Every structure is written in structure tokens, then in C-alpha cells.
């Protein structure tokens, strides 16, 4: 980096750099736990760790709104709904799936990794890299707020309609499922 900092700032920059590595480790370690855990709930916890790490990386990319969104929606809401899904699911004794062969696991993992590397690599190579503006645009959240409520205000109102549809839909589907289990004499 070609920034120049005062001495007391340099120490903070060092801490920020160390924390960057920490976030990467949290992301990767959480991901490995999420894939490898035997207990489903441990996998969810690993995923939460990974998502927290990604939220940290968003801060380093200078987009604090996305970081806040990541924590609020992914770590907060999506993970909660996953925990609830685990609670609602049948115990693993009932739902026994045939485990994949080791070679199949490695093979499919390698194929997916290669595909992802190919897609990302193409994008990286194709992108005309210019030196980023050294001053990170201050207040991206401000811009988002400004755009959301002036230029794209119609879209903004549509978002609330989409959320309305989502909430009514979830109630309707859950209620119907509930009635079915009642007819079968199941249900807790």
C-alpha cells in the first residue's frame, strides 16, 4: 500500500491487517465446519461463523451497508430460519441417506471448485483493472438511501409488496401443511 499514516495510525492499520487475516480464517474455517459437521446444528453454527467472516470482508471492501445487511439478514434471519428448519425436520434416524462414496465426494467437489475457479478466473482476466480511487467514496449508505427513496422509489414500494406476499405465502403454506398433518392424525 502506498498510503502514508502517522505513527499512531500505523499501529491501528497493522491491527486492521491482522484482523483481515482473522476474517479470512473465520470464513474458511466456518465453511469447513459447515460442510463437514456430523451434527446438523453444528453445520449451521459453522455457516454462521463463515457468514460473519464474509461480513467482515465486506467492511474491508468499503461497503458497510452490505456488511450490515450480511449480519442482519444472513447471520440474523437466514440462520435463524435454518435453525428452525433443523428443529422441524425429522430426526436423522428416520431420514437416513446413503452416504456418498469418498471418490464421488472428492470428484464432485473438484468439479465444482474447478467450475467456480473457471467462472471467477474468466471474470478476473476479462475485467479491465484500473487503479481504484484511493479515496473510498464516503457514505455509500447515503447514496443507497438517496437512490432508494428518490430515483427508485417505486421499486422501494414494490419491495414492501414482495415482503407482504412472502409473509402471507408463508402463513398460507404453513397452515395448509398443518391441517394435512392433523388429518393424518400426526403432528405434535
Amino acid at each position, binding site marked *: 500500500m502506498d498510503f502514508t499514516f502517522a505513527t499512531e495510525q500505523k499501529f491501528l492499520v497493522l491491527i486492521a491487517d491482522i484482523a483481515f487475516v482473522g476474517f479470512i480464517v473465520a470464513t474458511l474455517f466456518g465453511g469447513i465446519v459447515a460442510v463437514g459437521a456430523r451434527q446438523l446444528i453444528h453445520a449451521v453454527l459453522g455457516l454462521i461463523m463463515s457468514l460473519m467472516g464474509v461480513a467482515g470482508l465486506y467492511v474491508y471492501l468499503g461497503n458497510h451497508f452490505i456488511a450490515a445487511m450480511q449480519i442482519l439478514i444472513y447471520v440474523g434471519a437466514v440462520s435463524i430460519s435454518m435453525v428452525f428448519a433443523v428443529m422441524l425436520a425429522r430426526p436423522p434416524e428416520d431420514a437416513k441417506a446413503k452416504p456418498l462414496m469418498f471418490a464421488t465426494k472428492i470428484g464432485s467437489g473438484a468439479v465444482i471448485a474447478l467450475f467456480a475457479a473457471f467462472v471467477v478466473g474468466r471474470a478476473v482476466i476479462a475485467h479491465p483493472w484500473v487503479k481504484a480511487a484511493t479515496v473510498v467514496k464516503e457514505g455509500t449508505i447515503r447514496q443507497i438511501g438517496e437512490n432508494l427513496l428518490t430515483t427508485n422509489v417505486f421499486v422501494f414500494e414494490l419491495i414492501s409488496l414482495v415482503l407482504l406476499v*412472502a409473509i402471507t405465502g408463508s402463513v398460507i403454506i404453513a397452515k395448509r401443511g398443518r391441517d394435512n398433518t392433523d388429518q393424518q392424525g400426526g403432528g405434535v
Partner: protein
Amino acid sequence: MLQNFVPVLILFLFAAAFGLGVLLISSLLGPKRPTAAKQATYECGMDVQPDARRPLDVKYYLIAMAFLIFDVEVIFLYPWAVQFKSLGLFGFIEMLVFLFILLVGYAYIWKKGVLEWE
């Protein structure tokens, strides 16, 4: 720029250290005299009747869905709140419309008895 976030990081570390530290101190200093009764899993002082891993009632999931929807709502309040002054009255009314549409959803789940816990 990023070094301005170091205090936030320190706060996170303190929070994590406090949580882990309390557990560690209690395991180090606490007396350990285990008996069979103390080691047993219990549920309101009684033995656990069925297996803990069983499908739970779907109404828990409905509450979770309601939480999810209003959690997503909050994320849209955030940029508006930051830019509140310059957006002025127009933005305020826009946000009221936004909130009202979601309030319809809230009224719906209330009417459907999702929030009731018989």
C-alpha cells in the same frame, strides 16, 4: 479509513473474551463433585421423556418467518434513517407507505392467529 473500525473490532474481541472468559473461570474455579443425579439430563426437574430430537410444531417456524420478514424490513430503514434529513418529508411519507404495506401483513398474521399461543 479501515483503522477507524479498530475500536469496533476491539469491542467484538472484548465481548467474545468476556463470554469465553466467564465459562473458563467457572470451569477452573468451580468445585466439581459430580454425582449420577447431577450429570443426568433434566427437564424442569424431571427425566426427559422422549428424545429431544423430534419435529417441533410448525407455529415456531411461522414466528421465525414473521421475524425474517420484519428483519428484512429493518435493513431498508437503515439507509433511509442515515439520509433522513436530506430526504425530508417526501422520504418520510414514502417510508410510512412502506411500513403501512408491511403492517397489512402484520394484521394478516395477527388475524390468522399466528401470534396466538394456545
